[in-house]
Structure formats: structure tokens, C-alpha cells
């Protein structure tokens, strides 16, 4: 029997980026907030200090910061005809666990989405027409977000200043800025900090890309270029290019994470209570099933508690937001046969991969000196920045040299034809380790009616609840897009002086055994129609108005970019509505 706890105003399921940001905003209004985190508490000091934090075997290979998939895995299959099996080793994507969530081990790559991304369906239909979209793939279910870029801009701005993003504006209020990205959506002001110093690989990429007429710019980064005090009064340090960023926590207070930019203020707020090692089993609903009464969770000792709350915020990793909704019976689960239902619908991913450029031995890259977001990039092929009318696909990718590390276990590029082990392999690693440049293609993933999330009928977690089941393969549209850009990028590799350029590009079938991206997207998407969305434009559940589902699960289909900063902006956007509208008059903020 669950022990019933004293009611609170707000409970957050997960204390990562969205959970800590939302809790701070609401605790500051005087509401009592409880944050439930399934993982352990952890802080820059002492948990992230060297030399233990640079343990490549522990963090990169054994994934010490990731969701404990001995307890809760995700099952996977490529299509509805297959039987899904649990993912026993995280490889393709890496959901974080522990205080701060995935926003601790992220790379700090800090982009905004583009204007067209938010009105994607409208934009594509206006520019190319329905016939064109049908030809790209009749299974595609792209849609508008229900919120526009202009509405989000102030929230993007606020979040970037919270993080201290280091970058160079390319477009301030419509004025193109020299040195920045001319394709970026108009921003209201410059980044809070100047861009990171450009590594040598970036300089070589810049030269090659410029020689072909493209528009290189420095990647915006939440690994800071200089000491910075954020609007909460928290000081961040300068990134030292240690080469242990993604899959790791920062020991230098130099990467924006809940620990560095939010939690020290939140944890001092008397209205906030943090509970760690607490596994939320479900959101409880009253008899009408239109109102949540709180959540039920199990603590580390196995004791079950009921935490009553007026407002429930689902602030977990996107996949876990969807699973929480399904386990709680909130919203109609998506049925791929009929196309009806919404929870689990429009799960999308991210197209990644790019060429490897093998340089002459006289070019010393020193890849080990790097940050998580040190790239030099171009947006010439991002989103809808180029004319697709003759191409037979929608979407695009950014292209850039973003080498985040030269870590010894993970980084040993060798050209095709090299044996996979033995003396010749070692010789090839020795020859190429310091003379190889990786180029990243990173882009859109169109939503498809064939791809979705639901509850696994067979496999259960440590608490006896069904695992989330992922059914996913890249739509042919995405493969055509990625392969088209792969050809262009090979030309850049040659212009950089590559002796051997190994072509990149995404292929089918999608596999979970190779790292691609942790930008799992959608499944509880936002929109203006309850038939095609789980949450309204303020991320409020259509069916249960005192539940909000915050985070990447709300994104209807993935854009070109790494989505973290967009998640931050969406969270501020939703919190603005909660504070200024919902709290004054609890109930649906949008009437369908």
C-alpha cells in the first residue's frame, strides 16, 4: 500500500533540464514543488572532478551516465512485422540518468531551429505543393508545431543567456552579420559570449567550404569561450578544450548544465524539494480521468509513495515522457493500422553521419584538443535553405567539421581496406590518428505514420511495468536527402585537401548498435489539433489539463539541428503560459 504524502502544488517527473528549469520558475512564484529524479544526486564537486571523470571505459564504453537499462530498457524493431527486443547496450542514442539528466553529458551544441521548421507542413505545401510532398513519401506525417519562431524568440534569447552560449550572430533583427551564419533565424541580439577559438580542423574546413562558395560560421556552443555570470548570478568558467565533453560531465564549470546554470539557485529555494532515486510508476487520475491527482513512485528502498499534486509536469527524457503518458493512460495511444490516436505518434530521430577526410601526414590535427561544440559549419544544405523542387525529398542537414575528441578507445580512423585488427591496423591508426578530419552531416528526420512508440506486449521493467517499444526506420525521403548531401560534402572534403575522402550518408535499415544521435524526438507532439497532437501549443495535455509534457517529445518532427536549446526555449514558453495564464485560471489553455 502506497504511503500518501503531504500534497504539494507541483511535482516534476525527472530533474534534468526541463525539470529543474520548470521547478525554478514555479518555486519562485511561491508554489511548493517536488522534483522526483530516478537517478542519483551528483554535483560538479566532488562527482565530476578529475582524474575519475576522464575514465573513457567507464563513461564512453560502459555508459555510466546513462539510463540503467538493466532496470528499464527500451525495446526496438524496424517495422511492425518484426518482434521487438530490448536494447541491452545503449549505442545509437544515450538517454541520461541522474540529477541533471542528459543535459549533463550533452556536447553543448547550441542551435536554434529555423523559422520554417515551426510551420513545416504549411511551408512545404506553400513552396512545393501537395503533389510534391506526396511524391516524397505518402507515409510522411509532417505537421506544424502550433507555435511560431517569433513567439519563441524571446524564450530562445532568455535560455541562451542562461547558458552563456558562445557564438557569433548571423542575423540580428533581419540584418545579416559578418562572421555569423547568414541562414540563421533573426535573433533579437548577439550571443552572450563570443565564439570558441577555431581549431585547426575547423580552419581547414572553413577554407575548403569557402572555396566552393559556401558560408562557414562558428558553431554556437554552451562550452563557454570566457568566464560568464548568468542572469541567476551563477559563474561559469572558460572551456579548456579537454576533449571529454559528450558522454561526460564537465569538471571545470565550463559547460551549461542544470548543475552549473540552475540547480545551485533552485536547491536554495525553500519551496523546492529534491527527491532522488525515485522511480515514478504512473500519474494518478481521478474518476473522470480528466484530472491528475498526483503521482505514485517507488524509492530506493522499494517503498511506494503517493505524492498528491495540483500540477504534474512530465520532465523526463523524451522517450520516457511518452512512456509515462502511456503507463498513466493519458491520451489515446497511436494505432498505426488506423492512423488514429496520438500518444507515440510522430516519433522521429535525426539523420547523421558524414565523410572521413584523410589528410597528408604534414597536417597535424591534434583532435584531442577539443570541446563538445568546437565546429566550423555551413547551413547551405540545412532545412529548406536550398531549392528542393527537382530533388524529390524534403529536409536537409548542416555540414561541419565538429571533432569533439581524440579519445584513445573511440577515435582511431583508418581508411577502407585496413584490416580490423593486428599489426596493419595498428600501423594505420598510427599513420592517420593525427591527420584525419571528420565532417558531420546532421539533419532532419521526417515523421512517418510507420514510426511510433507504444508499450511492449512482452518485456517488462524491474517494477513489472511494460517497456517502451520503438518501431522505427528512416523514411526513404531521409535517405535520399542524406545521400544527396553526402555527394556535396565529398566535394568539400576534396577541397580541404583530403588524400582519401570516405563518403558518408545515412542508409537503411536504421540500427541501434551504432551511435548516431540522442535527439530522440516526438511521440507526445504539440499542435493545434487534438487529433494529431498530445499537447497543445503550451505543452499542456489536451486530455488532462493539469498535466504538461515538457521537452523533445513535443517536437512534431525533427529539424536540422541539435534540439537542446529549442527544448530550453519551449520550456520557458510553456512556463510563461503556466505562470501567466494557467495559474490564474487552471484549466485548458486552448479550447479545441
Amino acid at each position, binding site marked *: 500500500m502506497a504511503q500518501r504524502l503531504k500534497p504539494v502544488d507541483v511535482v516534476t517527473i525527472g530533474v534534468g533540464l526541463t525539470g529543474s528549469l520548470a521547478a525554478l520558475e514555479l518555486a519562485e512564484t511561491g508554489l511548493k514543488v517536488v522534483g522526483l529524479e530516478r537517478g542519483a544526486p551528483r554535483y560538479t*564537486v566532488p562527482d565530476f*572532478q578529475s582524474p575519475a571523470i576522464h575514465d573513457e571505459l567507464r563513461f564512453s564504453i560502459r555508459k555510466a551516465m546513462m539510463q540503467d537499462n538493466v532496470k528499464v530498457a527500451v525495446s526496438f524493431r524496424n517495422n511492425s512485422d518484426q518482434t521487438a527486443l530490448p536494447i541491452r547496450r545503449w549505442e545509437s542514442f544515450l538517454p541520461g540518468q541522474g540529477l541533471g539528466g542528459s543535459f549533463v553529458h550533452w556536447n553543448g551544441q547550441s542551435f536554434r531551429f529555423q523559422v520554417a521548421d515551426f510551420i513545416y507542413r504549411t511551408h512545404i505545401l506553400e513552396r512545393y505543393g501537395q503533389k510534391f510532398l506526396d511524391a516524397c513519401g505518402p507515409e510522411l506525417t509532417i505537421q506544424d508545431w502550433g507555435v511560431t519562431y517569433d513567439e519563441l524568440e524571446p524564450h530562445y534569447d532568455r535560455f541562451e543567456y542562461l547558458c552563456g552560449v558562445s557564438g557569433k550572430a548571423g542575423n540580428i533583427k533581419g540584418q545579416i552579420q559578418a562572421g555569423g551564419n547568414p541562414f540563421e533565424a533573426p535573433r533579437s541580439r548577439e550571443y552572450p559570449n563570443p565564439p570558441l577559438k577555431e581549431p585547426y580542423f575547423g580552419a581547414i574546413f572553413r577554407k575548403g567550404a569557402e572555396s566552393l562558395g559556401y558560408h562557414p560560421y562558428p558553431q554556437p556552443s554552451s562550452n563557454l569561450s570566457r568566464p560568464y555570470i548568468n542572469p541567476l548570478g551563477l559563474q561559469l568558467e572558460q572551456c579548456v578544450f579537454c576533449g571529454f565533453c559528450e558522454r561526460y560531465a564537465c569538471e571545470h564549470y565550463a559547460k551549461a548544465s542544470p548543475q552549473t546554470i540552475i540547480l545551485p539557485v533552485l536547491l536554495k529555494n525553500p519551496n523546492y524539494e529534491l527527491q532522488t532515486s525515485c522511480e515514478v510508476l504512473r500519474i494518478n487520475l481521478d474518476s473522470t480521468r480528466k484530472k491528475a491527482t498526483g503521482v505514485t513512485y517507488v524509492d530506493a528502498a522499494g517503498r511506494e509513495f503517493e505524492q498528491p499534486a495540483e500540477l504534474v509536469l512530465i520532465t523526463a527524457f523524451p522517450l520516457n515522457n511518452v512512456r509515462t503518458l502511456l503507463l498513466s493512460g493519458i491520451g489515446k495511444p497511436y494505432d498505426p493500422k488506423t492512423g488514429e490516436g496520438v500518444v507515440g505518434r510522430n516519433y522521429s530521430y535525426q539523420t547523421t553521419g558524414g565523410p572521413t577526410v584523410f589528410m597528408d601526414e604534414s597536417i597535424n590535427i591534434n583532435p584531442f584538443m577539443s570541446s563538445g561544440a568546437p565546429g566550423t559549419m555551413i547551413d547551405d544544405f540545412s532545412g529548406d535553405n536550398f531549392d528542393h523542387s527537382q530533388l524529390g525529398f524534403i529536409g536537409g542537414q548542416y555540414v561541419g567539421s565538429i571533432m569533439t575528441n581524440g579519445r584513445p578507445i573511440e577515435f582511431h580512423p583508418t581508411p577502407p581496406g585496413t584490416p580490423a585488427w593486428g599489426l596493419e591496423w595498428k600501423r594505420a591508426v598510427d599513420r592517420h590518428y593525427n591527420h584525419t578530419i571528420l565532417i558531420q552531416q546532421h539533419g532532419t528526420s521526417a515523421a512517418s505514420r510507420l514510426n511510433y512508440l507504444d508499450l511492449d506486449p512482452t518485456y517488462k521493467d524491474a517494477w513489472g511495468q511494460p517497456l517502451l517499444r520503438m518501431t522505427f526506420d528512416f523514411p526513404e525521403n531521409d535517405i535520399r536527402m542524406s545521400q544527396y548531401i553526402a555527394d556535396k560534402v565529398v566535394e568539400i572534403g576534396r577541397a580541404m585537401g583530403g588524400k582519401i575522402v570516405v563518403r558518408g550518408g545515412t542508409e537503411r535499415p536504421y540500427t541501434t548498435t551504432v551511435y548516431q544521435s540522442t535527439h530522440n524526438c516526438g511521440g507526445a507532439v504539440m499542435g493545434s489539433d487534438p487529433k494529431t497532437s498530445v499537447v497543445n501549443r503550451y505543452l499542456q495535455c489536451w486530455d488532462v489539463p493539469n498535466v504538461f509534457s515538457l521537452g523533445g517529445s513535443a517536437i512534431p518532427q525533427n529539424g536540422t539541428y541539435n534540439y537542446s536549446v529549442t527544448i530550453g526555449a519551449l520550456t520557458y514558453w510553456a512556463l510563461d503560459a503556466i505562470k501567466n495564464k494557467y495559474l490564474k485560471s487552471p484549466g485548458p489553455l486552448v479550447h479545441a
Partner: protein
Amino acid sequence: MRASKTWRCLLLAAAAAVLAPLGLITLVQAQSQARQPDARRGAVIAAQGTPAGAPACALCHAFNGASDGSGAFPRIAGQSAFYLAGQLRDFASGVRTNAIMSPIAKALSPDDVADVAAYYAGVDAPFLPLKAPDAALVKRGEALAKVGSEERRIQSCDNCHGPGGAGEPPAIPYLAGQYANYIAFTLREWQRGFRKNSPDAMAVMAKKLDEQEGSVLNVEMG
């Protein structure tokens, strides 16, 4: 004058003894320079100064770079040539100001700087027997140096200065074995702006330490 000549002779004799194992000297960052640093010439400068008027380094830092243990002068034995040369250039340019070292550095030519840095980088000097520091201070300093303080957002010194303060050459100096008084002194230099050659890292870090911590930290390192 006479005394100083005798001193110089002694130093030269010592130089000869130390120069024997010079194969150990590491010539750092020389690949792109036409001229290779000459550690033997550096040893002579260390022992007797230069005709241009720079006094012998050994007068304060000892010929083996161990200095005198007072902490008024840092130990420089085995510190990377890249780091030592950089500091000399910064003393000369004024990025790092010091009434004693700035005129000395100005009197050294670029070749002198490279040579003398190469010499001291290659010396493996013994550690002087010093009085044991206060155990409580060491404990407090060790916590700050190896772990840091979450409450005050002070990261561990080891993050950059290597495990146990062993250094991350060539760019980052060792702290282990450095004299406590010297580390305390130079932290104050960072705090007060006399050292400006790493303003985004060390100045920020030093300003987070209070006066007592400056000394505490260093006892541990020494």
C-alpha cells in the same frame, strides 16, 4: 667583486657536474624553429648570467633550480621549457609584472630565453628537507586541491595541474613540490592583477580563494 668571482667559479664547476647527463634534457616545441635551443649555453647563463647584464639565475633559483626553500623564489627544476620560456617573455612584456624578474627577462635575448628554459627543464633536482607543515592545514588544502568546493564553485587544482599537481606539460606547470609560500604569493599576484597571462582561468580561480586558503592550498602542494 672577489667573492662574486669565487661564486661564479663554483657555479661553473657545478655546471660541469650537472651537464654530464644532459641527454635527459627535453627540447620542447623546437620542431618549427630553425634554431634548436642550446641547453649547454642555457647552463652557462644560469651559472654566470649574460654579457648584456642579466644576472645568473642560480643566484636565486640555484644552479639545480631548487631555489633556496624559502618560497621567495619558486622551484623551477624540471618545469617545462615551454612554460618557463613563456613566463620569461611575459615578465619582459609586462603581462606578468615583478620588480625583480621583469628587468632580468628584458635583458635576455630570445635565444637566451630558449636556452635557459631548456636547461632548467632538464634538471632533476632533489627536494630540500623542509619543516613539516601543520597537518590540519594540509588536510584542508588537500581537499581544495584534489576535490574543490561545490558551494563556492571552486574546481580541483588537479583538473588542470594534473594528478597530485604533477603538471600537464608543456602548457601547465607542476605545483607538487613547489614551495608553499611561493604558491600563496603567486595566487595573490593573480588576485591583484600582477599576473595577467591567464586571466580567464587563474585570475578567476584565485579570486575565489580567501587569504587563508591561499596559504592552506600551498602547504599541501609543498
